[in-house]
């Protein structure tokens, strides 16, 4: 009997110590501290910090952190004569809606934040917005879900151009410069962002008289696209559109389409981070790819601000910067500037300043618009470029400025 108890105790201790080691390591990957100084302004950051979508969450968190560090180094954020030290609180929602609700609750009710700058993955934005809108927490994100920006969500802002802003100019350009392209095949992830992106592209293509010959979806995290591509390429498309694919997925799709003999036109409205997908797909497979709003962040065509940001980012984190990191850096910049314009930390007043203002950022000028599409001005608008990949490099071929910037 005693032997049995000792054995069990020993086993529990062994399992416990194994779990403890695991726990400590996990804890080190994300430590949301709750300590608070007198004049600290806490800003929440949501995002997937683990799992396959982790690069997005990590980029969001780093973008916000870099801007906060710059402001703190300059003596803090000065609002109505008082300086605040900014403290970002990143939480990991693992790209799931349930975790997004839990982490948003933590930010709003335990950390008592009034501003959340950054989130990615459409379904997690829906979950977070159910709380932020009710609690009047100002929330900016990069989620591409069409309904994430809506008239009944006045506290929510999208800080990255979405498929609805970038698809029509890209397809109008393709139609004009390559009139022989008529048959479009789409491949996109099987989730809200993927469906919405495909819908935006289909609308833009059909509007211009193009035919959609395939509209296929894959599960996030997929790596082998041979089966799906074999099916798509049998439909003989003139243009393969990668829609809402991430750089990793899209890089593999391009590589495998090339291996399967596809040599037609290629377009990708969500082609962020060219350095990463070109590395994965190789030069031949990406040759001639048309992208939009995603210049090489360390290339010759971006603004000096973005280039400086990319240099700083690489220096600090040892990895190339991504569009999402720039977007959240700019998001943090715009929100803090709006706080200064409002002279207040009241989300309602900051919201008014945001909608009225024009902000100078790393992108260049940013205004908040989008009423015609979403019924409310909550979309960040800034100049963007249409690019083509040539010999493994992004080459700018046309630049587009939203009409709201011209007013």
């Amino acid at each position, binding site marked *: 009997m005693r032997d049995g108890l000792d054995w069990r105790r020993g086993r529990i201790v062994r399992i416990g110590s194994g779990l403890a080691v695991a726990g400590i390591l996990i804890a080190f990957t994300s430590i949301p501290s709750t300590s608070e100084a007198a004049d600290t302004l806490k800003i929440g950051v949501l995002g997937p910090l683990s799992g396959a979508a982790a690069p997005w969450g990590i980029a969001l968190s780093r973008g916000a952190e870099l801007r906060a560090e710059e402001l703190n180094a300059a003596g803090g954020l000065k609002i109505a004569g008082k300086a605040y030290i900014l403290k970002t609180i990143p939480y990991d929602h693992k790209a799931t809606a349930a975790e997004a609700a839990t982490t948003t609750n933590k930010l709003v009710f335990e950390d008592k934040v009034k501003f959340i700058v950054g989130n990615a993955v459409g379904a997690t934005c829906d979950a977070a917005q159910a709380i932020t809108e009710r609690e009047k927490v100002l929330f900016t994100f990069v989620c591409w879900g069409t309904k994430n920006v809506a008239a009944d969500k006045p506290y929510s802002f999208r800080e990255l151009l979405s498929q609805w802003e970038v698809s029509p100019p890209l397809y109008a350009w393709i139609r004009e410069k390559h009139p022989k392209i008529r048959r479009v095949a789409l491949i996109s992830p099987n989730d809200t962002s993927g469906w919405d992106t495909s819908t935006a592209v289909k609308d833009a293509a059909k509007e211009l008289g193009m035919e959609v010959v395939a509209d296929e979806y894959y599960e996030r995290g997929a*790596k082998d696209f041979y089966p799906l591509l074999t099916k798509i390429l049998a439909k003989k498309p003139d243009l393969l559109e990668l829609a809402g694919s991430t750089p990793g997925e899209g890089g593999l799709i391009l590589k495998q389409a*090339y*291996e399967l003999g596809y040599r037609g036109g290629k377009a990708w409205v969500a082609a962020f981070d060219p350095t990463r997908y070109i590395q994965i797909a190789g030069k031949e497979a990406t040759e001639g790819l048309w992208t939009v709003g995603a210049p090489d962040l360390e290339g010759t065509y971006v603004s000096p601000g973005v280039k400086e940001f990319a240099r700083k980012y690489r220096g600090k984190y040892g990895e190339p910067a991504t569009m999402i990191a720039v977007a959240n850096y700019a998001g943090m910049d715009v929100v803090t500037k709006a706080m200064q314009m409002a002279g207040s930390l009241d989300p309602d007043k900051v919201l008014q300043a945001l909608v009225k203002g024009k902000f100078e950022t790393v992108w260049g000028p940013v205004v908040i618009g989008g009423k015609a599409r979403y019924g409310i001005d909550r979309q960040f608008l800034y100049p963007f470029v249409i690019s083509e990949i040539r010999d493994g490099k992004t080459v700018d071929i046309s630049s587009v400025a939203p009409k709201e910037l011209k007013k």
Partner: protein
Amino acid sequence: MESQLLIQALVNGIMLGMVYVLVALGLTLVFSIMEVINFAHGEFYMLGGYTAYYLIAQLGLNYFLTIAAAVVVVGFLGWMIEKLLFRPFRKDLLGAFIVSLGLVWVLQSAAMLAFGSLEKSVPSPFRGVLKVLGIYFSLERLIVTVTAIVLVAALYLFIQFSREGRAMRAVAQDSDAAALQGINVARISSLAFAVGAGLAATAGVLIAPLFFVSPFIGDLPIVKAFIIIILGGMGSIPGALLGGLILGLAEGVGSIFLSIPAVNLLGFVIVMAVLLVRPRGLLGHA
């Protein structure tokens, strides 16, 4: 066109099936000898991928030498992990299960800290496409398939004819009887774990240039490996091979007629159907 589509799908299915078999073989080997189900086995595959990234992409080492290096490095890690973490849980399914889940988190988080979160790409050592009768074959996929087949055959010969392999089979059949015959069961367990880890790492090296490497690439092959070994019969090496081929072919052909989410379900549906008729799997022992 339809027949070309079918052949393309079959070839693709066999290639991925063979790579998953390499992962599944290690898993089934460890299970048959230690009665331990190691959920962290996919992480050895991930570490193999990173070995490929550092040796091929960074140092420019030869592809096949990298496979050998991955077997040694990850195999040694497997050996150590068996000694330190799993040995106390030999024949203790629940304890080993919990430890292996903890190990998944530890190894994934450690990889994220050590290697970064972004996907790393490994340049393909065999670029090029062959076109035979209107069907495209990627040269690197053909080489991966052939290499995997050679490795499976090598493992079979090792288990069947080498002294250590025979000892492994003896321990798998009855560890007490094997110990009475003078076999060092602890050493054989470590060796099996190291061989299993080395095989998974080999699969990681083979696949790295086709896809990319990230801390989470082990998640998918481990699920496929479980389907394969349950289908083929837990602990059976020929069963793992058969299970891998069935899964690969079913997914390859299924992808022509079904949507991708449905194809992902297909493996589980086959497992359930087989278990209903034959609870020990296709080639499993009672």
